[in-house]
């Protein structure tokens, strides 16, 4: 059975249909790339799955149980964690505290939560910045902090919203390695990304969304040759 199933998901903003009968499934252990041109509805899909927005209609199931209508904190506690496209650290709190707060979801004592936070931050290469305020980190480091924070909730599915946006090429390579590591640890990953080269390289499967609708779903090498996808990104030739 699919780990996460989205079926006929629809969301209207006033007269605008941002997501239109969008369906896809995430299999356990895969890295799924969700791509599409600007304004295609990718982030809206993430916001719908994590409860930050309510769908106009449609269903979302985690291991067969509906999670529609749950508030974000409850969705996270069911095992779906996320990062944000525009990073949202707790700026005046320390790097360690940022992650400790997330570890409280399953570690009742502060000592254990801080231990887990330390381990995760070490892995994200932030072991030497534990006491710095999160606001002092570079954008790349803040993105890694958000990943550590999301992982500290012990998710089964991790939704990454443009983890590589705004990073330099070296940081993009590091981020790719990191995503593969996370999957190797047993966390299923869905990522929205604009950095095409990276997403094509690390995704097992790619879903393409355009004007809120799914236009392609398959292995990266097949999706890039799909005429609909090419048309969505490059436009169609006026004959």
């Amino acid at each position: 059975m699919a780990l996460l199933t989205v079926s006929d998901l629809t969301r209207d903003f006033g007269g605008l249909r941002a997501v239109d009968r969008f369906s896809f499934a995430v299999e356990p252990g895969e890295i799924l790339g969700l791509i599409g041109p600007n304004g295609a509805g990718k982030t809206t899909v993430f916001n719908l799955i994590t409860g930050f927005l309510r769908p106009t209609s449609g269903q979302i199931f985690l291991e067969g149980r509906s999670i529609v209508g749950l508030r974000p904190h409850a969705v996270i506690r069911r095992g779906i964690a996320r990062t944000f496209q525009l990073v949202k650290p707790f700026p005046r709190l320390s790097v360690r505290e940022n992650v400790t707060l997330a570890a409280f979801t399953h570690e009742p004592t502060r000592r254990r939560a801080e231990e887990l936070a330390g381990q995760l931050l070490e892995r994200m290469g932030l072991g030497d910045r534990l006491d710095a305020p999160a606001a002092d980190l570079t954008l790349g480091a803040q993105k890694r902090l958000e990943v550590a924070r999301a992982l500290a909730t012990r998710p089964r599915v991790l939704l990454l919203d443009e983890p590589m946006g705004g990073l330099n090429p070296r940081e993009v390579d590091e981020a790719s390695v990191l995503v593969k590591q996370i999957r190797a640890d047993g966390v299923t990953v869905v990522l929205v990304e604009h950095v095409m080269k990276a997403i094509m390289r690390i995704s097992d499967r790619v879903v393409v969304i355009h004007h809120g609708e799914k236009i392609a779903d398959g292995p990266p090498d097949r999706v890039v040759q799909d005429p609909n996808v090419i048309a969505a990104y490059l436009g169609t030739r006026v004959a």
Partner: protein
Amino acid sequence: MRRAAAVAVVAVLMMAPPFLTSNQFLLHLAITVLLWTLLGVSWNLLGGFAGQVSFGHATFFGVGAYATMILYLRLGLAPWYGMALGGAAAVLVSLPIGLICFRLRGPYFSLSTLAVAEIVRLIALNWDALTNGPVGLLITALPPVRLGGRVLDWESKAPFYFIIAALAALAMLATWRLSRARLGAYLLAIREDEDAAESVGIDTVRAKVLTLALSAFFTGLAGGFYGLYFRYVDPDAVFPIALSVEMVFIAVVGGLATVIGPVIGAVFLTTLGELFRERFQVGHLIFYGLFMMLAIRYLPEGIWGGVRRVWAVKR
């Protein structure tokens, strides 16, 4: 351990004044400072830790004051139980207010609390049957209370001093506990970023409503105390916007999200207010306002925040 010792020292200091002086005016001044301390500390729970800036806390003060007075005058309930029930009444009122206003964030939340406070003030002003309207409620004499074989002298300020000192100490203790509890950490997360707080599994609405209730409880107790101390309440005395704003000032000037900050704020602003009133008389509020502007410009973390920063640099 060091913090526990500090708390003990503060507690002893707080109980000392009536043993040092029987000057009624000085005691009255000390009672005023402690009443404002209690209010600043209460407001700081929600405004300082959770970053939810309420401009409507006079509501809880007024509800506490009226509940205490009405319970005594209409039902003959001993005012000391009435004061506790005043706190409880403020909690009851805080729940719907929280559930409504916390749907909004930032400045919109602040404005909604201001609006609710005005609505509550107008209800108090117009519901004659319950509140006696603009005329207010008056207690002519407080019932005698025996303590350790002695009848307490309500004409003296000393018993009132001990009561308000105990309440302020209790509120500070609650703040201290909160700052070390998981809820306290959650509130700071909410202050920093509500979406991010939700994304790490924090039920932000629940945390905010709980904290508002705690804050309202202490504010309501303060209102009850006010009613008994002055033996008179009317809507303009206990529901004014100025009262809500003063609570904000005390916490901000003293230092947000700290145990001691609002205490410093209360001592400082009450003393300063009295000084200005004495010296400048008519125009004293102009100087008060000027001082507030300077404080916010140059000490954005409050007096206590500034002190701590200087300490950190020296060490």
